[in-house]
C-alpha cells in the first residue's frame, strides 16, 4: 500500500510551455505537437520525468513548446545527447524529436547506432522530404528528380527510406503515422511510449511552404484508403475504400490482389508485428506508392530485446556485487606500494 499523494491528473494544456509556437501557419508540426500533448497525460507520468531532446531543423524546435525538461541540441546529435541522458537516468522518459535532414543526413550515424543499442528512447522523425529551416533544399528522403533550390535540374540522390533503415538496424519498435491522421498518430505515439526499448516512429509531415503536398496521396480523404494500408497485428493486409484489395506474398515479393475471384483473406499476408525476424517488416517498409503499393501505416514491428540503458547499469551493480563498492583508499594502495619514512 502506498500512502503517497496520487499524481495530479494532467491535461494537454499542462504540457504547453509559455513560448509562442513559431512554425509557419499550416505546418504539419502543429498537429504532431497537439497529439503529443494530448497523449502524454494518458501515460500517468509526472511532467518532470519527461525529457524532449532534439537536433536542428523545424521539427527540432519541438522541445521549446513542451513544458517538460528539454534540450534543443545540435544538428543530428539528439540521439547521442539522449543516450548520455538515458544511460545515467533510466528513470526518465526520453523523447528524441528529429527530421529527415537532421536524423538521416547529418545525424545518420547516431541514429543507426542509437537504434541498434535499443535504449529505451522514443524517436519521432518528422519526414517532410525537404530542408525547411534552410528554405527548401532537397533532403535525404526527397524523391529522385525533385527540383529544389539546390537541385534545379532534379535530385539525383537516391532517397533513403527511414523505416527500411531502422529495420536494417534491427529496431525493436518501428511505426509510421501521418500528421493529419490525428487518432492514428496519437495511438501510434502511445504505442511508442509504452514500448520498452528504442521506438522509432516516422511521421509523414507536410511542409506547406517548401514542399506542399508531398504526402497528399496518403492524406487526401478521397485517395487515402487506396494509397495507405493500416497495419493491425494478426490481421490480413487489406486496403481500399471497399476493403476489397489485399497484399499477397508471391515468393519473396509482395503483390496487390483483389479479393473475391477465388482469392480469400486467407491467401493474404497476415501482419505479425511480433515476429523476431525483421524480414517481413522490412518487406512492408519497401511497399511504396510510386511502385503501385499502398503504404503501410501503424506498427511494423514491436519485439522485446535487452536494453542498453538497463544493461549498462546492471554491469555497475554486478561489479559492485563482485568487488564491493569502490573504495579509493583500497584502490590507491592496491598492487605494489612502498613506504618512505
Amino acid at each position, binding site marked *: 500500500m502506498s500512502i503517497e499523494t496520487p499524481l495530479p491528473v494532467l491535461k494537454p494544456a499542462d504540457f504547453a510551455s509559455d513560448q509562442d509556437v513559431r512554425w509557419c501557419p499550416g505546418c504539419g508540426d502543429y498537429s504532431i505537437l497537439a497529439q503529443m500533448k494530448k497523449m502524454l497525460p494518458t501515460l500517468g507520468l509526472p511532467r518532470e*520525468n519527461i525529457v524532449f531532446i532534439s537536433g536542428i531543423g523545424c521539427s527540432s524546435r519541438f522541445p521549446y513548446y513542451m513544458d517538460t525538461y528539454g534540450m534543443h541540441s545540435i544538428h543530428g546529435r539528439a540521439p*547521442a545527447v539522449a*543516450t548520455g*541522458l538515458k*544511460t545515467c537516468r533510466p528513470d526518465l522518459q526520453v523523447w528524441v524529436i528529429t527530421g529527415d535532414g537532421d536524423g538521416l543526413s547529418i545525424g545518420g550515424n547516431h541514429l543507426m*547506432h542509437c537504434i541498434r543499442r535499443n535504449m529505451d528512447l522514443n524517436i519521432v522523425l518528422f519526414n517532410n522530404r525537404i530542408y525547411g529551416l534552410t528554405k527548401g533544399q532537397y533532403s535525404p528522403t526527397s524523391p529522385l528528380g525533385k527540383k529544389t533550390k539546390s537541385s534545379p535540374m532534379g535530385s539525383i540522390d537516391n532517397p533513403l527510406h527511414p523505416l527500411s533503415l531502422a529495420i536494417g538496424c534491427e529496431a525493436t519498435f518501428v511505426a509510421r503515422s501521418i500528421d493529419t491522421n490525428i487518432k492514428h498518430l496519437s495511438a501510434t505515439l502511445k504505442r511508442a511510449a509504452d514500448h520498452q526499448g528504442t521506438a522509432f516512429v516516422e511521421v509523414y509531415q507536410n511542409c506547406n511552404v517548401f514542399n506542399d503536398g508531398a504526402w497528399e496521396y496518403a492524406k487526401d480523404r478521397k485517395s487515402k484508403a487506396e494509397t495507405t494500408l493500416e497495419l493491425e497485428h494478426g490481421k490480413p493486409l487489406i486496403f481500399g475504400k471497399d476493403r476489397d484489395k489485399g497484399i499477397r506474398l508471391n515468393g519473396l515479393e509482395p503483390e496487390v490482389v483483389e479479393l473475391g475471384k477465388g482469392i480469400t483473406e486467407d491467401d493474404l499476408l497476415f501482419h505479425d508485428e511480433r515476429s523476431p525476424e525483421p524480414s517481413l517488416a522490412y518487406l512492408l517498409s519497401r511497399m511504396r506508392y510510386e511502385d503501385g503499393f499502398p503504404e503501410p501505416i501503424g506498427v511494423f514491428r514491436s519485439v522485446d530485446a535487452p536494453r542498453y540503458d538497463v544493461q549498462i547499469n546492471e554491469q*555497475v551493480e554486478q561489479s559492485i556485487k563482485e568487488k564491493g563498492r*569502490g573504495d579509493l583508499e583500497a584502490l590507491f594502495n592496491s598492487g605494489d606500494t*612502498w613506504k618512505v619514512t
Partner: protein
Amino acid sequence: MATTTPPKPVANLDEATVRFCGDSGDGMQLAGTQFTNTSALLGNDVATFPDFPAEIRAPRGTKAGVSGFQIHFSSNEIFTPGDTVDALVAMNPAALTTNLADLRDGGILLVNQDAFEKKGLGQAGYETNPIEDGNLDKYMLHSVPMTKLTRLAVEDCGLSQKEADRCRNFFAMGLVFWLYDRSLEPTLRFIDTKFGKRPEVAQANTSALKAGYHYGETVEAISTQYHVAPAKLPPGTYRNIVGNQAIAWGLLAAAKLSDKQLFMGAYPITPATAILEELNKHKNFNVLTFQAEDEIAAMTSTIGAAFAGSMSVTASSGPGIALKGEGLGLAVITELPMVVINVQRGGPSTGLPTKTEQSDLAQALFGRNGECPMPVIAAQSPGDCFDIAIEAWRMAVEYMTPVFVLTDGYIANGSEPWKVPVVSELPKIVIDHPGPLADGETFSPYERDEKLSRPWAIPGTPGLEHRLGGLEKEDISGNVCYDPNNHEHMCNLRAEKVAKIADSIPLQQLDGPESGDLLVLSWGGTYGACATAVHTAQAEGKKVSHCQLRYLNPFPKNFAEILTKFDKVLIPELNLGQLASVIRSTFLIDTIDLNKMQGKPFSVAEIVSKINSIVA
C-alpha cells in the same frame, strides 16, 4: 640466489638511465614497465619514457617497428626520463641503429648477438656487422647470444620455438636486473599473476629471467655491478603511476568527493584510450562508460549525461577534439559542467599518433565557433594528472562550465613514483542542485550567483522544467532570444564568468628568485626538462627562475606582474609558439621561443643550452 662464482665488485651510482629497445613484438614495453616498478619499489625516484611506433606490428626487424622504453632512476629527486642513456639493450640491429645515438660514450651496450645476422643487418641498413667491425668500440659492448641462451633455459618447459623465443625479453630483463642490482621478486610475482593460467609459460619466463640474471653474475666479460640507492622522497606511501591511469583515478576520486555517478563518453583514440580502459576496470565506483559511435557522439552523450546530473567526462586527442568542437560550443552555451581531456599527440590531422606534442593549446583556447570561452588547465607530470582531474571537476561545478584538461602522450604514457594521497584529506566538492519549486513559482535557469554561475537543475525535479539549447539564451529566463543587446550581454557574461575563475585558483608560484635576468615559462609536460635545466642554471649562479603555468585560461591573478620582473622570458614549447603568441598578445611583451616538433620531449641539455645562449 645461489652462485658458485665469487661476487663481483659493486659500484655506487647516484642515478642511471636504461633503455630497452627491440622489435615491437619483443616485449620491450613490458621489460621497461617491470624494471620501472622494481626500481620504484626499491625506493628510487623514477621517470619513464615509453616510445613506440603507430603500427601494432610493423614488418619484423625493420626500423619502423622499433619500440623502446627508457627509465631514469635515481637516489635524488628527478623530473625527466633522462637525456642520454647509460645502458642500452638492443634486441636487434634495427633497434641498435635507431637508438645508438642516445647512448653516452662509454655507456653499456647489451645486444642480442643472435639477431645480428644477414637479414636483420640488411633491414637495419648495416653493410658490415657492427658488433664485429669495431664501430662500437667506444661503448662497453656485451654481445650476448640471448636467443640461444633463452632457448636453452626454457627447453624443459615444453614450448614451441616461437613461444620459447618470446621469453627473450625476460632474459634481457634478468641480465639488466643483475647489472643494476635489482631484486627479481616483483617480476616473479608479476609472472605468477599474469601467466598463472599457463604454468608452462610462467615457468619458461621465470627460467629465462633467472638465466639472464645468472648470466650477469657468472660471465666474466661483465665485470661490475651497479647500485643506485633509494631516493630521499617526502615520507609517505608510494606507488608507481602512469599518467593516463592517474587521470582516471583522479576522475574516480572527483566523483566520490562530489558524491556523483561518473559518466565517460569516449571513442578509442591514441594516446587517450587508456583512460577509458582504466575507468572500465572500476565500474564498482558507479562508473558508466559509453564507447560511442564517434567522437561527436562521445561529446554530445557527455553533454546529455551532464544534463542528467552526473559527473560527465570525455577524453580524446587532437583529431577527436576537432570533431568535438561543435559539441563544445553547445556545452559552453548550455553552461553545463563537464571535463574534456585532450591527451595531445603530434598533428596536424592524424599526424604522429604515438608521439608527443603540445600543439593543441590554440585549439583548446580558440578552436570553436563564436565567442566560446573555456577554462584550460594542463598537467605537468604523470602523477599530477591525478590532481588536475579533481581540480577540473571542481572548476566545472563551481562555475558551471566545461573545462579543458591538457595532458600529452609523454606524461600520459610516462610514469613516476606517486605519493598515495590520504583520502580523508582530499577536499570535498560540494554541489547544490536546486530543489523542487512550488506551483506558481517560476524557475530561471540562467539566473546567476556571485560567481556568475547558473543553477544546475536536473530532470526529475518538479517545477524546474526548462529547456536548454544551442540558440542564444535570454539572460535569466534562458528563453530563446535574438535581441542584439542580449546577445552581446550574454557573450560578455560567458567571458566574464570564465575570467572570474581566476578568483578561485592559486597564485602563480615561481621556482627561483622573484626577479632576474630570465624567466623560463613552461606549461604541461615540458615541466620536468625545464625545472631540471633551471636548477642547473641556478646552480651556476645565473639569475634564472622557472614558472610552470598550470592555469592557461584564465591566468593566475599575479601572473602579469611576474612577467614584468624579468628582463627576458623564454618559452620552450613542443609546438611552433602557441603559448608564446598568447603571452605576446595578452601582455604586450617580447618572448624568446624555443620550439621543437620532433614528436619527442625536450632534453634537459636543449633547455640548458638555450638558457646559456641568453644568460651568460
